């Protein structure tokens, strides 16, 4: 019994890139949400959580419409890059990002709120500019929030399925991720293969998670 490792690498790449980009986008968004006093904050927060609510295949369907070459997002993308957003790795990344956004933003926002203004004020009076204070004080103090965000975001992208299937089109080597591969084995009643893939994914994920959480213990908790 040989196992095709292609989907595994693809999945790891997808999850890695998705989480990296989400951290990049999610950090300022979460920061803003944690510190803003605007009235529209609840609206933005609700919007951020919305991807959770719809079934993945349904999100997949709507994203397909948005990403299609004539779609609101797909059309400019096609013009700019010459490539379609649907059925491409880029599209998959974008879809995963939309789908996993709440898992990154919510823990980060919570962590930033818990850090509060005190340490930032202290840093400012020591001459640290806003970015400096963010990187050297706020984010290390919010490290546990980052760990949670990474774990949830990464894991959710690993396990994501409906959206990826729909938007990605299951193209081997390009958009065929491991969840689809497992699904296929179950559907065709190849349970042995499915067990191997699922078991491998499980063991790998478990090991990564244990490692992350074990490291996490070393970070101080910043209680009130």
């Amino acid at each position, binding site marked *: 019994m040989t196992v095709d490792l292609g989907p595994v690498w693809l999945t790891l790449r997808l999850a890695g890139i998705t989480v990296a980009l989400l951290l990049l986008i999610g950090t300022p968004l979460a920061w803003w949400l944690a510190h803003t006093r605007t009235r529209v904050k609840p609206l933005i927060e609700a919007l951020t959580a919305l991807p959770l609510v719809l079934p993945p295949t349904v999100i997949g369907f709507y994203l397909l419409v948005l990403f299609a070459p004539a779609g609101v997002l797909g059309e400019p993308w096609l013009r700019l890059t010459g490539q379609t957003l649907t059925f491409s790795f880029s599209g998959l990344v974008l879809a995963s990002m939309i789908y996993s956004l709440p898992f990154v933003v919510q823990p980060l926002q919570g962590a930033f709120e818990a850090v509060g203004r005190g340490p930032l004020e*202290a840093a400012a*009076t020591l*001459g*640290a500019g*806003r970015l400096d204070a963010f990187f050297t*004080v706020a984010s290390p103090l919010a490290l546990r929030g980052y760990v949670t965000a990474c774990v949830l975001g990464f894991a959710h992208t690993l396990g994501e399925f409906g959206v990826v299937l729909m938007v990605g089109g299951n193209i081997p080597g390009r958009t065929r991720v491991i969840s689809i591969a497992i699904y296929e084995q179950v559907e065709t009643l190849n349970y042995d293969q499915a067990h191997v893939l699922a078991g491998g994914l499980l063991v790998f994920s478990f090991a990564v998670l244990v490692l992350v959480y074990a490291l996490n213990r070393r970070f101080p908790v910043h209680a009130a």
Partner: protein
Amino acid sequence: MSALAFDLSVDHGAFAMRACETLPLAGITAVMGASGSGKSTLLRALAGLEPAARGRVQLGGTLLQDAAGVRLPPHRRGIGYVFQDARLFAHRGVAGNLRYALHRARPGADAPGFDEVVAALDLAPLLGRRVGGLSGGERQRVAIARALLANPRLLLLDEPLAALDLKRKAELLPYIRHLPGRFGIPLIYVSHAVEEVAQLADEVLILTAGRVVARGEVHAVLEQPQAEAVSGHFEAGVLLHAHVLGQAPDYALTEVEVSGQRLWLPHIDDAPGAPVRLRVRARDVAIALQRVEGVSIRNQLQATVLRIDAEPASAYAELLLALDGADDSGPHLRARITREAVATLGLMVGQPVWALIKGVSFDRRVLVGGQSG
């Protein structure tokens, strides 16, 4: 050194602050006031940390904020802050907290050095520690060191010594006192302790319910009733400006002169002619009708009774005395004695008396280096 001019108002609903002052910043400015009077609020506003603060702040030649919309962010103000709660960074150890400040220090040839500050605050044994397990006083010492290492243009200290024991306090005070002279860093210092203030400050500013009710040279302000409201009657007294006359090395005494009269103080290392400041508490002054011989009280000054304030509800009366040889405005003394003594001695306004100042009540601690005053 430069001046700090501000015209600030802060509205917190139930509490409103309004303060408009120009402080010379020629050393140490103390801020006193009852709990909740707005001391921390004022400091936060100066540092740019109080979003609700409106108005104008100018430090030396730099406009930090004005009503028209200029508002320098806190990290560009060069104003250091030692918070009432220490606010150490929990993700760095003690050394890491200090180095954080060091790496961001304003450049300057005479910026405080790491080893120097660590030694001054006795932090060597704590350098390897995490900040989690530090005791209250330990935290505060680290916070002071950290603020110093950033080499600010102006350092705000919000009751930095409240958590320290007296011995540690006594060790730190001289160090703090010399900061302005040594590193050119003027201080604004919040404190409840009039002794600390008398010892440290050049200027005092007293807040009551968000308003500046008294301000000026320590000398002048500490004699005002507003100061008493804050410091408590027990510690009321006056500050005297004196000059060194000479030394009696055998007895570790220094002779000083106030308005032509002589006093002996525990030795201070100053050359003749050097100005010094002395605090004399009302309760340390006794009154005699003539010079008294055969007592251990060496400092007996000739004075005239200017006023007698009896406090009918208490056992005491407070006397205001003019030192002989002084002009009208000139150095006054206060004496707090029992009403019974006033009656028995038959004291009256205009009467010449001798003020007995118990020698040892001049403590080294109430001597303030005169160089900046």
